[in-house]
């Protein structure tokens, strides 16, 4: 029989501690929609997305009601559009409009995959797609774009890094009348995972099956509440164990939802992404977990160590709870989406340099950081290159999602509303890396031994 305390614990987690399934994301391969005629290709893309994911929202809602768990987002990721653009030629923005229309028809809140994989160089379609990103993101609302510019196996494509610096700026400029929101839908990756269910970086990798369901769990509030109940003198091994136990329970819930959704939709279940994904809601913050561990404020000396332990314990706890783990899996640190991070950034405790150090041990990278509107493109390229280098050398995923606040300077704020949150403009070191960026070429793949 089920224990009453266990029942009440689950109910408390959902009701008071913001436990939810953050996203069920259907990955759809569009390789069979490729066509030499771009208009025909767009028709096939629209038809396939609506056919495969037409029921996604309804199925998600019925699972929410059956188990009483909120499933916050229902989303779709597709094959990197650069591959289709390479075959069809023409203006890639047509694909973006098609994705946006399909997303509206099926009622999802984001669709990812306006993407290109360029870690070793540009193939047909890549350059055209990248050049079209600013226009695509300003003309559409639900489309998310990502570009992979490096990997541990391939090194870093510095030509792509240089280009992306100006693409990020241009994207922000074209949406400057809407809080520069375009840049919040654009992620630049190193070692991008092909099965990531989280936006804005989700795309359906070419090695994935035709159609698959991936689930992203959440639960920073639950972890923090569990730690708050511990004795302040409990040692860090005990803290780590508590995080593991909590992550296990949260992940089991994700596994259940994924299995149910896959059965109801008749689509294979891919992975559970074991992530602590914060929201701006008070109590749903990764920064507060770090502070609960024992920091005066997130960003203090010791933050990187606390985050490293948190990230590792989440993975250890979650791994046994799911039959297949994948995606980004770990703790996210998106500044504008996390109440504790916003507070730390406002008070000056959190700088972009500290965030960069934190990304060496967390699951993603410099995420949702607002930078001054006059930051030159070369400096943004420098930020991207630094972050990619951390990912490449440490064989992990890193990413950059910075938002140049056009027309705003340090001390001012951008407010995106909803899950994307709000955040102050952070100081950026503007000494120029222009000469390095102009060199272009590739940073060769790193040695895999002599790890010091």
């Amino acid at each position, binding site marked *: 029989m089920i224990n009453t305390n*266990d029942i009440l614990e689950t109910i408390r987690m959902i009701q008071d501690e913001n436990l939810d399934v953050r996203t069920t994301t259907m990955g759809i391969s569009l390789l069979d929609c490729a066509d030499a005629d771009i208009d025909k290709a767009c028709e096939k893309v629209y038809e396939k997305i609506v056919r495969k994911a037409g029921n996604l929202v309804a199925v998600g809602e019925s699972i929410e009601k059956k188990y009483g768990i909120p499933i916050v987002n229902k989303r779709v990721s597709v094959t990197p559009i650069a591959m289709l653009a390479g075959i069809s030629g023409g203006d890639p923005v047509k694909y973006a409009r098609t994705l946006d229309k399909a997303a509206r028809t099926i009622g999802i809140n984001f669709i990812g995959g306006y993407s290109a994989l360029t870690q070793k160089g540009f193939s047909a379609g890549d350059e055209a797609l990248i050049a079209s990103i600013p226009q695509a993101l300003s003309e559409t609302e639900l489309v998310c774009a990502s570009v992979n510019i490096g990997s541990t196996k391939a090194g870093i494509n510095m030509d792509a890094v240089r280009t992306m610096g100006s693409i990020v700026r241009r994207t922000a400029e074209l949406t400057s009348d809407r809080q520069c929101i375009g840049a919040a839908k654009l992620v630049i990756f190193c070692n991008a995972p092909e099965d990531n269910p989280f936006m804005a970086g989700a795309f359906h990798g070419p090695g994935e099956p035709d159609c698959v369901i991936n689930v992203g769990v959440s639960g920073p509030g639950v972890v923090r509440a569990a730690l708050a109940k511990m004795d302040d003198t409990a040692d860090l091994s005990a803290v780590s164990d508590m995080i593991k136990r909590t992550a296990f329970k949260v992940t089991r819930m994700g*596994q259940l939802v994924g299995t149910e959704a896959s059965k109801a939709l008749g689509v294979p279940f891919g992975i559970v992404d074991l992530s602590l994904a914060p929201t701006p809601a008070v109590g749903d913050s990764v920064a507060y977990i770090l502070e609960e561990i024992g920091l005066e404020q997130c960003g203090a000396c010791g933050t990187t160590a606390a985050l490293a332990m948190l990230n590792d314990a989440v993975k250890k706890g979650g791994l046994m709870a799911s039959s297949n783990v994948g995606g980004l899996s770990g703790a996210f640190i998106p500044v504008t989406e996390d109440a504790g991070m916003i507070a730390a950034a406002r008070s000056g405790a959190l700088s972009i340099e500290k965030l960069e150090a934190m990304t060496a041990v967390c699951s993603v990278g410099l995420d949702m950081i607002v930078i001054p509107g006059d930051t030159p493109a070369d400096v943004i390229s420098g930020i991207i290159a630094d972050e990619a280098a951390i990912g490449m050398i440490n064989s992990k995923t890193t990413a950059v999602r910075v938002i140049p606040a056009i027309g705003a300077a340090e001390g001012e704020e951008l407010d995106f509303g909803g899950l994307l949150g709000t955040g102050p403009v952070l100081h950026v070191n503007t000494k120029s890396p222009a000469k390095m960026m102009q060199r272009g070429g590739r940073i060769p793949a790193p040695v895999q031994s002599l790890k010091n």
Partner: protein
Amino acid sequence: MKAVVSVIGRDMVGILAKVSTVCAEANTNVIEVSQSVMQDLFAMVMIIDIAQINCQLETLQARLQERLEGMTIHVMHEDIFNSMHRI
């Protein structure tokens, strides 16, 4: 197939009676009830068999909520608890 009904709120006369009535109307069989009252806070967990249920779980929850205004009521399929708390 079983579901868990939980009711939390201020204690008053007839909570259990109302919950059981609504469950019976939905053709579900009560298997186990555990309830306690601490000061004036009422907490009840009821496990019901839903093999022959004649409505959706959400409808059952809505009917309970209608009869017991002001109480916090959850109706959830048992699998969520089994998967979270059992290996």
